[in-house]
Each structure stands twice: as C-alpha cells, then as structure tokens.
C-alpha cells in the first residue's frame, strides 16, 4: 500500500472506509445506469410482428406500441388530401428471411400474400401525406397501436418495394 507511506496519521485510521466510499459510490452509479437501461428496454421495447402474430396476441396487445409488417393491397388504398387521412389494408407476410428465400424472394412473397384470400388482413389508418411507394404489393412496415375496433393506428409508415435492379443484376452481392 503505497498510500499509507505518506498519508497523514488520521487517514490510516480512515483508510478502509475511504476505499469503501469509492466502491459504494461507484456501485450506486453502476446500479443507476443498469436500472436506466433495464427500465428503458421494458418501457420502450417494441415487438416486431407479422399480422398473424399481432392478431394472435389478442387483447393484451391493444394500445401497446408495436411494429407490424404486411403486404399492401392496392384496391384498399384511400386517401383524402384535405384531411391527410390515409387508410389501406395489408395482408400477412412472413418475417422470416429463410421462408422468404424459399418462396422465391420478397417480391414473390408479397405478390402471393395479396392474392391469397385466406391470408389474415389488417386495416391500417395513418394521418399524413401519402408516400409515393405506397402501392399494390409493396411491403408496409407500420409503427403504432391496435385499436379496440381492430384497426391499426400507425404513427410511422415505412415502405419497401423490392427493386427491379436487385433482381436484374447478374449474380451480385446486393449490399450496395
């Protein structure tokens, strides 16, 4: 212990408690940080669900913030530019990349989903400008909550269209 060599006498008596203070202080801060992270996750984590999974959750999911993805059914799109109210229906598509790959790619999966009369469907409501990419067979990723009446109220709307370029490219890593 180098510190005892030059520390004043009173400090020797207080030595251990002096070290302990650091550990206690440090532990309190570490505990606070861990608490922040854990409670942060508990309160803000969002499930990323398919339409099937959302419907299967039942009433417990109503009012909770979740993300849902689905295939847009073109005929269902209604938009009022005056009020910016946008409604449309999506059909269930799988989230699993393996299944998508097996079914022949995202474009194929989306096309199948909108044709399939048995696919679970979900009505979506969104207030805001209509995105250009919102069209038949696009994949919509919506953040929002399920209402009591079964309509999904989205406050964020992302759209993905499988671009023709990725497919047109001769065997090429698509990370670009």
């Amino acid at each position, binding site marked *: 212990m180098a510190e005892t060599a030059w520390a004043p006498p009173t400090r020797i008596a207080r030595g251990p408690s002096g070290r302990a203070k650091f550990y206690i202080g440090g532990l309190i801060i570490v505990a606070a*940080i861990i608490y922040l992270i854990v409670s942060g996750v508990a309160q*803000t*984590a969002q499930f990323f669900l398919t339409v099937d*999974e959302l419907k299967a959750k039942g009433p417990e999911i109503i009012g909770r913030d979740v993300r849902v993805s689905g295939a847009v059914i073109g005929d269902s799109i209604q938009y009022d530019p005056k009020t*910016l109210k946008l409604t449309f229906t999506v059909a269930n598509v799988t989230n699993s990349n393996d299944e998508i790959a097996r079914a022949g790619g995202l474009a194929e999966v989306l096309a199948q989903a909108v044709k399939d009369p048995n696919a679970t469907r979900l009505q979506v409501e969104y207030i805001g*400008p209509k995105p250009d990419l919102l069209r038949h067979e696009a994949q919509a990723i919506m953040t929002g909550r399920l209402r009591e009446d079964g309509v999904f109220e989205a406050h964020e709307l992302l759209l993905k269209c499988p*671009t023709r*370029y990725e497919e047109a490219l001769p065997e090429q*890593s698509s990370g670009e």
Partner: protein
Amino acid sequence: MIADLGLWATVLAFACAVYAVAASLYGARRKQPVWVESARNAVVAILPLLTLAALTIIASLVRSDFHLAYVVNTSNRAMPTFLKVTALWGGQNGSLLFWSWLMSAFAFGVMLRKWERDRELMPYVIAVTMITQAFFIGLVLFFANPFAKYWELPSGDIVSAALPPAGALPFRAAEGNGLNPLLRHPGMIAHPPMLYLGFVGFTVPYAFAIAALLTGGYRSEAWIRTTRRWTLAAWLFLSLGLLLGGRWAYDVLGWGGYWGWDPVENAAFLPWLTGTAFLHSVMIQEKRGMLKVWNMVLIILTYCLVILGTFITRTGVISSVHAFARSEIGVPFFIFVGAALVGSVALLISRLEGLKSENHLDALLSREAAFLLNNLLFMGITLAVFWGTFFPIFSELFTGTKITVGPPFYNRVTGPQFAALVLLMGVGPLIAWRRASAKALGRLLWLPTASALLLAVLLVLLGVSIPGAVVGFAIAEFTAATTLSEFWRGARARQRSSGEPFLTALSRLIGRNRRRYGGYLIHLGVVLIAVGVVGSHFFQKESQATLGRGESMSVAGYIFVYEGFREIPPKPGDDLVRDIATVGLYRDGRRLATLYPQREFYQATQETLTPPALYGGRMGLEDIYLLLVGWEQAGLASASFKVYINPLVNFIWLGGVVFILGTLVAAWPNPAEERLLTPAAERRLALGEV
C-alpha cells in the same frame, strides 16, 4: 484493362502487408534491425500501390466502364464526373478499398515520423497495423472485390469475377444503376472519408498500446505521449464525421432531425464514446501513473468498435441475424474482431503485474475521482447504445421474436447520463488533483450555481414547463459559466503579472497552454451542442397540411402561402427531375422569404429525395424546415407540405465548429512539449529526474 493494373497493385500491397508482419516480428525476435527496416520499406510501399489501385477504380468510374460490376452498381453515365469520383466510397467494395488506402496513408505517416525515438516499439507497431491492413486488403481481394468484372459463361449465365472463368467472354452492361441519390449530397461526400479517417486513425494508438504490452514499454507512459496527437487526430476526424453525418441527415433525409439512433449512426458513435473516455483517462495516467490497465482496456475496446463500426456502417446488417449471416463479409469480420478482442485481452492479462498503479485515489473530492466518474458515465452511455443497437439480434437469437428499441429508449437512457457529463464537465476542471478542498471549490462554484438556478427560475416564470428542458438549459449555463470563468481568471492573472492588454493575455494564455485551453474550447463546443439538442428535442413543433393555390397554413406564428408549382425536366445527359413548390413565408404581416421545397426524382434509379427548404427564423434562433411531401397532378392543383420548427438547432452546428477549433488548438504542436519528448528527456522522465 486499367482495372487489372489496380487488381495486381492490390495483390502486391497485400503481399507487402503480409511480408511486413512476418519480417518485423522476425527482426524483433532475432534482434536483427535489418529485417525491421525491410518491413518498414514494405509498409511505405503500400501507400503508392493502393493509391494506384484506387486511381484505377476512379478511372473506370469516370470512363463508365460497365465491364466492372462495381462501376455498374454505383454509377451511371448521367452522373457528373465529381460524383463518379466519389462513388469510390459509395458502395461496399470500393469503400473497403478506400479504407485500406487511408490505413496505408496513416501507416506511411507513422513510419516516417520519429522512428528513432520509438525504435523498440516499432516492429510491433508495424505488425499490428499491417495485420489490420492485410485484413482489409484481404477483404477487398477475396470477399468484396471492386475489380470484379462481368463475364458471360458458355451456358449464357452472367457472373462477376476478378479473373475470367474458363471459356467465359467479357460482358459489358449497357448502363449503370447510378449512385444512390442519398449519397449525392455534399455532406455525404465528405462524411464517409472523415469517418473512415477517424476509424483508421485509432489503429495507431492501439498498435502502440499492443507494442508497449509486448515489449515492456507499458512500464512507462511513453506510448501515450507518442500517440497523443495521433489519437487526437483520429478523434478529430471521427467527431467531424459524426457532425457532418448529422448535418447531412438534417439536409437530406427530410424527417426534421439530425440524429435518429439508427444502428449505422450508433456504430460510428460507439468508438467515439470509448475514444473520448480514453482521451480523458490517459490524462490521469500521464499525471499520476494510475488506471494503466483501464486505459489499455479502453484503447482495445475502441479498436474493436472501430472494426465493428466499419462493418456495420458498410453493410447495415444489424437488423437481423439472417442478414448478418448472409453478408459475405460478415463471418471474416466477426472472426477478426473476436480474435483481436480475445488476443488483446489475453495479452493484457499476462502483463497485469507490470501495470500496477503507482498511486491510489486519495479523496472522493479530487480531479482523479472526477475523471473516474467521467469514465463511468462514458462507459454507461456506451453500454446503453451498444445494448440498444444489438438488442434486436439478441432478442431474435434468444427468444425467436424480434424486439427493437427506438429513439425513446436512447433518449431516456442516455439523456440523464449526458446531462450528468455536461455538469461534470463544468465542475471537473476546477477540482484540484489528489485532494480538493470543498471550501475552495465552493468559492469557484457559487456564482455559476447561483446564475444557473436563476436561469432555471426565469425559464419557469417564462412558462417553460418541461422539467428536462429547464434542467438541461440550467446545466448548460452552469458549465458555460465555469468554463468561461477559467479563461477569465487565467487571462486576468496573466494580465496582472505581465501588464499585457486583456486580449493579448488571453491569446497568449491559450497559446502557452494549448492542451488545457483547447480542451476547454472543446467543452464550450459541447455546451453549445447541448443547448441545441435540448432546444430542438423538447421544443420541436410540426404540422402538415394540403393547400390549394393561394391557401395558407400557420405554424408557430409563421404563415406559409402556397404560391406556385413547377417541374424542371432533366438537363441533357442527366436523369434528375425536380418538382418545386413556391411558398411565401410571412410573419406579423411581413414577407420574410420565398421558400422552394422540392422533390428530386432520379429517373434512372426511380428513387426520390425530399430535401427541405430551410429558413433561419428569429435571427437564426429557430430553423424553419419545410418539406414538399406530395401534390395532385390534376384537378385540385393542391400540394401537401410538412413543416418543422426546430428551435436552437443552429447551436449544434455552431458548437460543432467551436468543438473542432478546440481540438485543433489542443492538437497543435507545442515546441515546449516537443522538447520534453526528446530521447534524453524521456530517459530523465523514466528515471524520475523531472
């Protein structure tokens, strides 16, 4: 074929890197300097080789050589020449080559500077930097080759490969896909090089740290002093990269903000956090010989996060385990980061004995304890950001359901910690080393504390009802006051003793103590950024509406009148269509400006971009951010707009400038310090004679 020249130059560079690793280690082992000198020559040769390689890609891009897959993927004929040049880092494969090239430039610089002084360390510095270099060139050659060309097989299939497959004929695409429009903005052109320079730069202090561990150089603080400026340079570039990235997001992405806690942003932020912790905590080691192990841990972490960050920013695959597994470069990256982490930590553990602290903490109220708290907070933020970024992967691996966390998580968890850091930034520099007297500290702090409390009361009286905002502004005011008072007290003291005018005294004060006052300038920059973040986070207003010609909307006292619309067809040889709305901006019945929000449409790639029209309202104190989000082609002749009012956001950019200036001041060579670092001075230091 000019790209073939580049390919072989890259192969040669790879051989040089591998040779340099072997020769430097052999030379160090056998104590034969001639091998180390030879390794050094190999390192120096890599820069011209990779320069040539990068130039051949640039030449192919400029000449639209669509035989090359990379050229097809990142450019098209319609792009202006300078964008074709920047397409070098517009895609994964090219940017890995670009990374390697920057790495070789840094290594080149290390080889030329002060070889004699660090003779002992150099073989291992070469080995570590060249292992990194070889890894990246290896990725370029074997996994993500920008020199790959299209070939038509006898079966009629088209493949891409660097060398022609048997019986294949060259295939040339008719037109390229073009650079992603998001990457055509000036901010995005400068942002990746800055970020990469920062990433690459941290390899240098890491290499010196590992070399110090391997040679016994860890017993002194020489490696820290040698790399201080390299670390600062890396940190400067990384900071600049982050700032430019934020500005780019603000100007281009059209969602009204500058930071979205996206995995790609986080990946660049993580090494900045650990790097900043490192910059602070090495000061304790320099001054008191403490925290030696911890500093090694920090630089190892920073290096690993840099490699991980490169991977994530390059591929964006964090959203899913599957995407990770599918990425061609995922597995090699994962192995490299894992090996670097395990190897470095094992080496560190084997050297623990020699890394004992020379001193102990004396008191809770001391500069050392403040630095410790600073480190704890930086690590807390790092942990939170890391956890949030990788949470989707963990949850998918362990529970099967993907669970994501968004900005609310990060704001909630890091917000209080950032606030504590800014507060600490105000107090820490005033606390004495070893043991501070509470009384003396109180004398320095009561005025800033009183003024901060006064500000808080004033804000509440003015109707600011958000607790986070009141606390945030008060803390920023407090730290600004204590930091400015340091400049004031120092300059006054100098003025009294030398009789210089105040401004002369102030500038000489800064000039003679660049590290200290450069650091304070950086702190002031952070305070300004904090003000901008608090203002724009808590007080952002947004509104949207669809307007017919002549109709108006009103937001926060501003009136927007939709006046006209026009479409600008592409210029000859270009593919960009602009749809521009004309909007009159009024306040208090006075016309302030005409705004032109627009939608850019790139015909070749069918991609759109919605850059905002910006106007600094109330003398620049709030930014008006107007977007054209849609329009009716016929009938109504209406257009939809979205408006954000972003208060104080300009403080972020202003703070960024101060921050960068402060870093330059702190990093500027100081003749007095240079003298201290001569070998003789170093020996005296080691012997404790100074």
